[in-house]
């Protein structure tokens, strides 16, 4: 567990700074939502911001940064690889609109 010394060495200011960063990043997502750009570009930008937010929350709010490096690597590599593995079906979702046999445009 994170020790009392760790908490003493890292003041409340660090938590507040991360909190403000998260608020700003969340606000940035709302700004992106009102930009005049196409949906795919908007999605990419929002996901990048969400990824940064998630990284900050996991590293500092969930104290992953203070855990052993091998554990940090385990969590990061395992999670990211499974998340990437879920992306294999996007071409099929496009075929639902533009291709046979389930095309709605035909």
């Amino acid at each position: 567990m994170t020790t009392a010394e760790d908490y003493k060495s890292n003041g409340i200011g660090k938590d507040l700074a991360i909190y403000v960063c998260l608020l700003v990043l969340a606000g940035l997502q709302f700004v992106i939502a009102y930009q005049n750009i196409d949906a795919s570009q908007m999605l990419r930008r929002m996901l990048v911001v969400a990824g940064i937010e998630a990284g900050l929350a996991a590293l500092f709010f969930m104290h992953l940064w203070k855990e052993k490096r091998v554990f940090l690597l385990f969590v990061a590599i395992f999670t990211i690889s499974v998340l990437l593995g879920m992306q294999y079906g996007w071409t099929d979702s496009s075929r639902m609109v533009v291709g046979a046999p389930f095309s709605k445009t035909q």
Partner: protein
Amino acid sequence: MSQADFTMEGHSTGLTAGPAFSIPTKKLAMWLFIIADTMTFAACLVAYGFVRNGSLEWPRPFHSITNVALMTFVLLTSSLTMLFGLRSARAGDKAGAFRWTMVTAALGIVFALLHIREWQELIDQGMTLFKNPWGTGLFGASFFSITGLHLTHVTCGVIALIVVGVRYKGGRYNADDIEVLGLYWHFVDLVWMFVVPLVYLLNLAH
């Protein structure tokens, strides 16, 4: 079982070695749960993206961001109060830790009420699980599934916060239990950071 029960000749460590990654068992269990739950939410969001991408008439029913912005602010703030609770617990300030844990639970309740209010508004406009006035009926199913799953997590978290807070105050739980619960609460917050852009902001009516 005693250590002798686990010990074989020439193999005295094995099962009695320290916890994996040198992390206490409860905390490791919570991390493994969080990793598994990440997959659950990711699967829901990918499935949502799949049907959204494959639907020609995807509804964009959200005209205002006020409610979702307020919900985001409340949830982010609850993560901060959770950190304050953990800090107080680590410092041995039982009253402070209990107070901040209850503040976190109260913010969770506010978030849930805001969420239910938003659901009610959409239901009043004619949106159900399988149909809505704006386009494909898949929207209602995916929206209520994803936000409902998240709301379930928030509700469970609020109950856990109250139970752990009370038991911590009573001396049955310690600061480590607050930290483990904090991991769960921050995870709920983290998931919301992906739900907001994908489910709400991409469906804003311009």
